[in-house]
């Protein structure tokens, strides 16, 4: 019981720290887009390093398609770091655009609503940056943005991943 409590509290540390960070950024930057950009950039920095940690902990096999990669992000990475498993949908026939649908989002556990005057704030934009940075470290360029956000009144929270360059099997290397 003690260990379980501790595990839960550990996520609290990250979630609360993230909240304090966003609050500080809202003080520093007037425009929502500046805060969003900052969070994305920060996430990118984290993602480029997190991917090493991820590859060291998981035993992911070599991927042969974008949809495999997206599945791994949703089912392995999200589960490992945030304890949730978003569902994956593919949005186009050429299978380069995907969505992660987050039913639960631990990052917003303590957030009731966006602060006044901050309606375009993408509170979880760090996540987009993390995914983008991590993918880039394995030589994949992608656009990652929030398509829907529960905090903004949408029904679900949806992260869109658009892979930009065609995956060449021979050229694809997993970062060591």
């Amino acid at each position, binding site marked *: 019981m003690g260990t379980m409590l*501790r*595990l839960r*509290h*550990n*996520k*609290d*540390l*990250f979630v*609360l*720290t*993230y*909240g*304090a*960070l966003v*609050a*500080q950024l809202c003080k*520093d930057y007037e425009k929502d887009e500046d805060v969003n950009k*900052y969070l994305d950039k*920060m996430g990118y*920095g*984290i993602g480029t*390093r*997190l991917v090493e*940690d991820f590859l060291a*902990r998981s035993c992911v096999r070599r991927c042969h398609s974008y949809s495999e990669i997206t599945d791994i992000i949703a089912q392995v990475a999200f589960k*490992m*770091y945030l304890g949730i498993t978003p569902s994956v949908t593919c949005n186009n026939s050429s299978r380069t655009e995907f969505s992660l649908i987050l039913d639960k989002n631990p990052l917003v556990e*303590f957030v009731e609503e966006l602060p006044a005057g901050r309606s375009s704030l993408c509170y979880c934009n*760090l996540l987009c940056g993390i995914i983008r940075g991590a993918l880039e470290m394995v030589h994949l360029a992608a656009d990652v943005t929030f398509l829907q956000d529960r905090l903004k009144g949408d029904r679900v929270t949806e992260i869109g991943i658009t892979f930009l360059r065609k995956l060449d099997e021979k050229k694809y290397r997993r970062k060591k």
Partner: protein
Amino acid sequence: MADEALFLLLHNEMVSGVYKSAEQGEVVSAAKALEENGRCITKLENMGFRVGQGLIERFTKDTARFKDELDIMKFICKDFWTTVFKKQIDNLRTNHQGIYVLQDNKFRLLTQMSAGKQYLEHASKYLAFTCGLIRGGLSNLGIKSIVTAEVSSMPAYPDTGLHPKTPRSQPELKPRVRCSTNCATQVLR
């Protein structure tokens, strides 16, 4: 634990982010640079304060009432520190007059940095958040304090001095002292 990696990376990004934003302006003199550094440390400390308040609320929801100040400090050293940093404080000393020194011989936020004296001066940036964390936690438990931290050598032998505010003057508290081998950070408020 995977959670820890995420927090460590976030913390590091926060520290570099705060200092990068400060660098945007022209740094004209050493005095100005010192001022900027102080401002960054305060920012980080304040964020830690917020988090510490929130954390202690969640941790102590179901715990019994604390008997006294020492009891609270022991809680910080054992349960709180373990939950946040996966280990207990290695050494707790007190003069029973309001000063507590917590010693962590392998401080998690610094273990990833290289050993060596040349990084000592930067260590204070990575301690500010934790100082705030402790101060915030104590604050929500009803203790007003000043928390400073010291690193005697990397990777990590920080001493955290806790000084609940008392009307008596504390001769050990020397604001703004910087030694060459020790990095002492006075939290500026």
